[in-house]
Structure formats: C-alpha cells, structure tokens
C-alpha cells in the first residue's frame, strides 16, 4: 500500500521553523492513475489516452518512445527547476523537429512539482487543477516558487519512502494563507512533441497556513510504501 504524508513548515527568513503541520495526504486524483495506466499499458501514439491538463484542456498522452531517443520519456516527471526556469519533459521522439519545437515540451518550472493555493473546495477524484493556484512571483498574493526536489529514497523493512519538497517564499508585501496543496506531473505526446502538466494530487490544508511577508513555506510530500 502506498500512503503519503503532507508536511507544511512555516519558516522565518533565517529558516527557523515557526510552525509545523503534518497530515496524511488523502488525495491522489484520477490523473495519477491515468499516467500510471499509460505506463503500464504502454499506450502508443496511434491511440493515445486523453487527460485533462491543469488549464482544463484535454491532452493526448502516450508512452511511446524509441531507441533513437534512447527511450527517454518525461511522463510522471515531478522534479522541477525554480520559478520561470524551463522544465524539459522529453517526448520520446528523435525527429529533427523535436529540437526546433523545443517550446512544445518545455513547461515553466513553477507549474511542475508541488503547488500551493488558496482554494478551499473539497477534493474529488476528478480534480484537474488546484481550486485557486497561487502564482509564482512577488506581486500581491504571489509566492516565489523554489525548485521542486526529490530526495532521500530509503528502505527499512517493512517501509520505503522518499520526499518531494519545495520552498515557497513570500516577498509579496502581505500575508498569504495557503489552504490547499498539490502536485503537478508531466505527460507527453510522442507525435507532436508536446508536454503538459497534470494535477496528480490535491489536499486541503485546514485551517490554512498564514505565511507572512518575508517568511517561507516548506511543503513536503512523503510517499511511503508498507508491506
């Protein structure tokens, strides 16, 4: 069985922990199952599987990859660079136009990996986006998204786990209350070289965590298996 811990830690600007919350994440949504399905069933580009992305658009995803591209494929990718840096999600093709159309398989780093928002709507399996995602930046209501890192895979029978972690910095000039968290992961299209971000997990944080100006929020998802 796989379960997930969700940990939210509010830090001051010197990284001292001011508040810590830990709750069971209850909320892998259908898109996670869909990406696993594509991988297990080896969905090919001739009959791709349609998944709704974080912008509400239906996207065709497959697991096709070829030897010329060393079978590289960005599906299920969660790790991401900070802010507006490019997350490159390999589409599995070695066509010359893959390079010239690189913009199709690049995703803004802040749109991949752990996300936070202010929405309070209850989670359903068919959620495809946070209710109200907080944007990356320093304007009012925005948080700066650090990189999304995956660390610490470890096993001690009967358990195994790793950690997905991201720092959010509030330089907006005001307090921001985080009421929801989630994870975006990638799915790709072999034929047209596209990559998109899909919501694979969403959790409500109640009560919300108020992050004052200059403070940081460290959000960790810890997937664990237990035999």
């Amino acid at each position, binding site marked *: *069985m796989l379960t997930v811990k969700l940990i939210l830690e509010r830090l001051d600007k010197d990284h001292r922990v001011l508040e810590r919350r830990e709750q069971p994440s209850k909320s*892998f949504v*259908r898109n996670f199952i*869909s990406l696993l399905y594509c991988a297990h*069933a080896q969905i090919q580009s001739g009959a791709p599987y349609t998944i709704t992305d974080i912008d509400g658009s239906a996207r065709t995803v497959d697991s096709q990859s070829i030897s010329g591209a060393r079978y590289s494929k960005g599906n299920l990718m969660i790790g991401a660079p900070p802010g507006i840096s490019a997350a490159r999600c*390999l589409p599995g093709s070695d066509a010359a136009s893959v390079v010239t159309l690189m913009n199709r398989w690049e995703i803004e780093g802040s749109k991949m990996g752990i996300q936070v928002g202010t929405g309070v709507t209850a989670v359903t399996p068919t959620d495809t986006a946070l209710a109200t995602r907080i944007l990356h930046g320093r304007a009012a209501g925005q948080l700066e998204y650090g990189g999304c890192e995956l660390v610490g895979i470890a096993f001690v029978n009967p358990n195994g786990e790793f950690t997905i972690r991201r720092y959010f910095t509030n330089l907006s000039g005001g307090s921001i209350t985080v009421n929801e968290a989630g994870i975006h992961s990638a799915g790709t299209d072999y034929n047209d070289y596209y990559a998109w971000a899909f919501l694979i997990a969403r959790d409500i944080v109640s009560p919300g965590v108020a992050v004052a100006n200059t403070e940081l929020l460290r959000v960790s998802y810890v997937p664990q298996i237990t035999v």
Partner: protein
Amino acid sequence: MDTQVKLKPELKVFKDEEIPHLLIPGEMGAVLELIVTDKDGKVTEKRILKSESFVRQFLELLWIQTVQVPEVVTYSVRDTGNTLRAIWLSGVIFACNAAIGAVTHGIRVGTGLTAPIISNYALETPIAHGVAAGQLQYSAVTFGAPASDATTSQFTITRNFANGSGGSITVNEIGLYVEGYRDGATYYFMTIRDVISGGIAVPNGQTLTVNYREQAVV
C-alpha cells in the same frame, strides 16, 4: 487432456463503472480479484481482496521516473533474476503489456507461501507457462481504462491462467512484473507481491482470471 480453455482475458463480474471499495481515503494501492471459471465460463470461485504489497521496486521505479534519473547517473534496481540493474528514465518503465505466454512481465502467479517483505524481487515459486504438470497457460495481459466514482479512481490489469495440465494447481502468490530500461536492454522488475491466504485452486480445465485494480482513494 481437456485443454479447451480460454486464453483471451475478459473483465469478468465487474463492469467498468462498478468500482470495489476496499481501500481507505489516502491509500493508493490495488484491489485483487480472483475469479475461477469452468470451461463453459461459469464462475466456480470468486474472491476480492486488498492487495497489501507494493514492494521496493515499485517505489524505486516511481522514483526514477518522477526524478527523471538520467543516463549519466542511473539508479540500480534489483531485477526478477536477483541482479541489480542500473537503469534510467524511459518510456517503457512500468510496462506490463505482456503477450500470450510471456512470463518476463505482466501478472504472474506462483505456489510460494512465504509472506511478502519489502525486499522481495520475484515470486517465491513462479508457475511456468505451459500444459505440463504444474504449469498454467498465460494469456496476454489486457487493461481496463481509468474510471472513477465519487471517491475512487482505478484502472485494471487483467490476465488469464488456464489449466490444461491434467491436474489441479493451487495458486498461493501473485505478482506484477514490469519493465525498466538501460542502453538497449530491457530488464524486468517485480512491483507487487501478494500471498493469498489458503490459496486458490484451479482445477484442470478451468481458468483463473486475475484482475489487479490499481486505485487511489480521496
């Protein structure tokens, strides 16, 4: 020998929209359905149980793909032959779409009884494909597309095991073998192993259908 057994997998008993609920909110796992049918397709035994046992390789393959472990780094995972394989991100990771008779990947069954532990890398005593004594005929693996209801999302992996061996065979363990890749070579890894309490007997001429329904519950 009565070998007129079905090798074409079918999703029996449950329609796609009927999702069994054995997992609790927050769990991502599998529901295991075991259905034995006679040569006329009549169900002679059916069990539904919670799959308890993602093993180490499941988390490792998920790690490789979510991190996007590159070729220049690699991550070593123990394969079903008990050899560590340095693999990297790929499009074939988790593939279990095995063809008829293929025992390298897909759902596999065995007779081993030892309880699972996280480091299990293969079934304890796998049953071979065939019609000789102690063997079962493995169908191709098929899939049921993702579906969801108010709480649960799932997709289904199905395989039939037909007994044309001439004698009854008791299946005590079930596992899911999947692919991983490095540099022109495909390797195979076990991601789930379940031991079935009391086993499930497959009489000669009958077919065991195994459905692994991978689910997430909110």
